[in-house]
Every structure is written in structure tokens, then in C-alpha cells.
């Protein structure tokens, strides 16, 4: 669908550095990265709204680098909505149809229903709540049936049930053939909607991969930290054992590898915490729960092992009670060698 080659943008204090990316037709492509990484700027560049220092953008083989935005058939939903303040909600949504060959009014009505905008149609955007503005902005972009849809955190201001509904709708139109590139901070969305994901930090593309792969096998420490692989440990590796630098602990890993120093990562949800010694003896450590921090449905339980490893595990809130794990008390942790990722 779209291929970006060697794209660079210079904004003085910020640079986007020769970024290359390929999105397949019909793909639901995610872009994630820390705040200020350059995600929005990348979307703007794809839409043709930012002057490039260098680089080439091709769509279906055609070079569109110098094409004006309106000829790209790419719709962008801005993070801050960018509604037309002088038009009613309805006119905002319908506006793009003026420039489309065969305007599809029926679709507009569908979108209005789906986004529950019926009662707001005559209102001025300035009087809308944040979520309402976001819905209008999304509906406006969808109304023109772009071949490529660029979404910048399009569901961030919506309540969970609405977000779920609209995620489903996005998944549906993506299945129906629309290519979507979406920036989001919600890993749930990345996992449930995305095919592949690009991780950008500080203007540099760090990794492009299948969504699950990025979480399980991040390319480097920055990506690992970003995707929440909280347990990162410097090790000396020898065959299928990793001895933690400076500590006495030995961690079993899945395949034999040549001897070297390496970084090793374990996702907190892959670590099991139990009050009693687990059956498996592989990668099982005794320790003390030093902190329990609630994170919504789960708790971050940090355990200091006897071998002075400090690992964080996720425990479901309900399990915490049933398993009787308390801060300051003894507990066991255990994880599969399969879930140990070596960089």
C-alpha cells in the first residue's frame, strides 16, 4: 500500500531520522512510542502536510512525495480533532463529500448513528465535550472513504464501552479493505486491532514487527522498556543458562547460545507469584514481596529474591486475595524459560 523510504524531517530541536516503513494494503498498522517521539509528525508527513528534508513516499508503486495532500486520498484524524469551528457538526461531517466523486450520503447517516451524534448535528463544535469532538472528527474522516486512514489517538477521549464499539467498527472497516495507520498509547488497542506495529522513540524507528512479537521480543532495551517488559537483567550467557551479573542467581533460558554478555527480559505477566513453593523447580525463586502497586485489574508485585534479584510480576487483583500474597511476606516466583527474552 504505502512505502516510506528514508524519510527525514527537521524541526529545529526535533528531527525525524531517515525512517523507512512499509504498510501492506488492508493492513491495520499501529504506531506507538513515548510522548514526543514524532508519531504525529510521521502521520502528517504521510498526509503531505510537512515539508520533507529527504525521503520518498510511494503508494501502490506511485511516487506521491510531491503530491498535494488532497490528491493522496488519505484522511487524517488529528489528535486535537481540528474541527471546523464555523460549521455545525453535520456540516463538519459532510464537508469532505464536496470533494468526492460519488458522495455517499447514506454512509454519513450510518456514521452519525454509529457515533451517536444525532442529537448534536446542529451544534457548533466549540460547545462539544472532548469525546464528542473526537467522534465528530473520526466520522468526518470516515465519511470520505479514504484509501488510507491516518488516526492519531482516535479513541483516547472516549469511555471504555464506546471505545470498544468504535474499535469494533474500525476492525470491521479494516476487514472491508481500508488500510489504517493508527497512533495509540493503548496497548490493548495495539493488541486487539493491530496487525503490525512500529515503535518510534526520539524520531528514530526502533522496531517494526507483528504486534505480539513486539511485546514478547522487543528489539532493544528502549523498546522493551516502552512495551512494559519491566524485568531487564544484565547477564553472562553460557549455553542455556544465564548468570546474573554481580548476583548469584542463575536463570534458565530456552535454547543453547554461545557464551556472551547479554540483556535478558521477562514480561511481568509471565511471572507467577505464589505463597507456596510451586511444582516446577525451573526458574523458581524464593523471596519477599516488597511492594504491591494496583494497576487497574492487576497488581504490580515486586519481589526481592533471596538471590537479590528484583523482579516485578503482574497478579490479578482477585488472585492476590485468593493466593494470600501480602507486602513484606514471603512468597515464591517462577517463570517458564520460554518467556525469557534475550537481546
Amino acid at each position, binding site marked *: 500500500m504505502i512505502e516510506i523510504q528514508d524519510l527525514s524531517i527537521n524541526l529545529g530541536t526535533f528531527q525525524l531520522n531517515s525512517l523507512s516503513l512499509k504498510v501492506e494494503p488492508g493492513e491495520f498498522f499501529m504506531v506507538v512510542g513515548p510522548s514526543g517521539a514524532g508519531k504525529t509528525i510521521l502521520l502528517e508527513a504521510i498526509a503531505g*502536510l510537512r515539508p520533507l528534508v529527504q525521503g520518498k513516499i510511494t503508494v501502490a508503486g506511485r511516487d506521491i512525495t510531491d503530491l498535494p495532500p488532497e490528491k493522496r486520498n488519505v484522511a487524517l484524524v488529528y489528535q486535537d480533532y*481540528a474541527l*471546523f469551528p464555523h460549521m455545525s457538526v453535520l456540516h463538519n461531517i459532510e*464537508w469532505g463529500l*464536496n470533494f468526492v466523486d460519488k458522495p455517499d450520503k447514506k454512509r454519513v447517516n450510518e456514521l452519525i448513528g454509529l457515533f451517536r451524534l444525532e442529537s448534536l448535528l446542529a451544534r457548533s463544535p466549540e*460547545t462539544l465535550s472532548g469525546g464528542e469532538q473526537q467522534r465528530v*472528527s473520526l466520522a468526518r474522516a470516515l465519511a*470520505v472513504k479514504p484509501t488510507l486512514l491516518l488516526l492519531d489517538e482516535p479513541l483516547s477521549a472516549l469511555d471504555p464501552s464506546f471505545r470498544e464499539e468504535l474499535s469494533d467498527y474500525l476492525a470491521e472497516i479494516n476487514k472491508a479493505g481500508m488500510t489504517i495507520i493508527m497512533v495509540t498509547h493503548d496497548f490493548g488497542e495495539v493488541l486487539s486491532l493491530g496487525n503490525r506495529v512500529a515503535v518510534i522513540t526520539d524520531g528514530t524507528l526502533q522496531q517494526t514487527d507483528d504486534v505480539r512479537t513486539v511485546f514478547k521480543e522487543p528489539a532493544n532495551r528502549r523498546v522493551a522498556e516502552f512495551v512494559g517488559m519491566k524485568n531487564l537483567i544484565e547477564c553472562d550467557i553460557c549455553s542455556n543458562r544465564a548468570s546474573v551479573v554481580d548476583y548469584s542467581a542463575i536463570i534458565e533460558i530456552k535454547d543453547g547460545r554461545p557464551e556472551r554478555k547479554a540483556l535478558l527480559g521477562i514480561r511481568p505477566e509471565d511471572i507467577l507469584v505464589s505463597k507456596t513453593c510451586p511444582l516446577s523447580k525451573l526458574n523458581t525463586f524464593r523471596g519477599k514481596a516488597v511492594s504491591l502497586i494496583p494497576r487497574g485489574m492487576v497488581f504490580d508485585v515486586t519481589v526481592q529474591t533471596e538471590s537479590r534479584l528484583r523482579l516485578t510480576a503482574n497478579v490479578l487483583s482477585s488472585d492476590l486475595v485468593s493466593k494470600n500474597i501480602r507486602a513484606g511476606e514471603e512468597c515464591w516466583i517462577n517463570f517458564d524459560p520460554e518467556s525469557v527474552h534475550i537481546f
Partner: protein
Amino acid sequence: MHRSSRESIFMLLMGSFLVIYILWPLVGLFVRADWDLVVSSARDREVTGAIWRSIWTAAVSTGIIAFFGTPLAYFLARKDFRGKAFLEAIIDVPIMIPHTVAGIAVLMAFSPKAPLGSLLVKIGLSPVNSHLGIILACMFVSIPFYVDAVRDGFYGVSPRVEKAARTLGASFPQVFFRISLPLARKGIVSGLIMSWARGVSEFGAVVMMAYHPMVAPTLIYDRFATFGLKYSTPVAVQLIIVCLGMFLVLRLVSAGKRREDMNND
């Protein structure tokens, strides 16, 4: 609620000084006017002719300014470049030039003896003592008012909104006409009013280019010189009434229907 209205009342009180400052002399003019003459001069062909001429020549001049000045204003609002302040200063110069000097400068530029003027004469247009002359003079004095107001209007239009419009399939001109222009509406209306009204009021510069055909200010002057204040005031009063009406319509149109949401904020 009372809090914010207390502040509004204070601001209105401060401002009412200026409103009264404007109204007082105007009311004086109206009170002193001989209303029989106002009524009868409303039927005087010379008076209505001059007022109408003032209105349309200033309107034509404003139209030309708007045609060329709107892109200029947009350019000034959106681009930054070396020498921009200088360009803006040049554009403002006609505001501060004494009107007679402005008239002399325009006259010299367009006199049939000057290159530009002779060109106009060649294509059959007379730049002095003609409607064209009036329009040329009005343009010179009005340009900066239009350009300044509209540029300030465009400053308030978010480039993001324009960009979003582009991605919806609208070309630059389409976005300009359907998004940027309507969003700069307040500035444009102010610019149109100022430019047009400035043209209507111009005497010093216009009279250099064309005493005849007479526009309203010239007629008022002429009446005053010939017949005195008693006969010039009715013309002035009539001109004010007509223009006040036109302002009112323009402001009402531009205000639109923002009433509700504003007072809730």
C-alpha cells in the same frame, strides 16, 4: 454570575466614555440640523446622486482592494520572511500621509502626463475628474485598513484546521475559500467596513483627483462654502444615516448566531 457581570459593567463603563465621545458631536449635528431641509434634500437629485456616488465608488475601490488584498493579507499572516516588518510598514504608510499629500501623490502618479496616467488615457480611461479618479484616490487611502484587519483575522485561523481540510480532499483554493475565509470573517468584515467607510469619508485626496463628479464629502464642502452650515449639515446627516444603516446590516450579518454559546462561556 454577578461576578462576571460586575466586570463587564466596569469594562462597559470605561468604554462608554468613547461611545459618548463619538455620540455627543453626532447628536449635536443631528439636533442642530434643520430636519425640513434633511427631508427635502433627500429628494434633491444632486444630494442623492453624490451620496450614491460616494457609496459605489468606495465600494468598487474596496472590491478591488479585497480582490488583491485578501491574498496579500493571507500571505502576511502565514509566512515569515526577512523584510516582512518593512513590507508591513510600507503598507501602513497611506494611513499616516496627510490626505492632501496622498491626493497630490496619486494625482502625480496618474496625471495624464505621467507614464501610468497616459497609459490609462490611451486605453480611453480618464484618471482625473472622473469616477476612475475618485476610485484611484479612495484605493490609496483605504488599502492599509483592509490589509491590516484581514491579516489579523487570518492570524486567528488555525493552520491545523486548514491542514485537516486538505486531507479531506479539498485543494488549497477550496480550503482558502471555504475554511480560511469564513473563519477570518470578523476580520474581513472589519476590513471591508473600514476600507469602504474610509473611502466614503475621503475628501482631501479625492478632491485632488476629481472635484467633479462630486462625491458626498465634496458636495458637503461645496454646500458649506456656497450656502453655509445650514445647507451642508442636512447632506452630512443623510450620509451618516445611510452609512449607519449599511454598517448595521454588515455587522448583523457577520455576527451570525453566536449569541448563545458565547454567554455561556
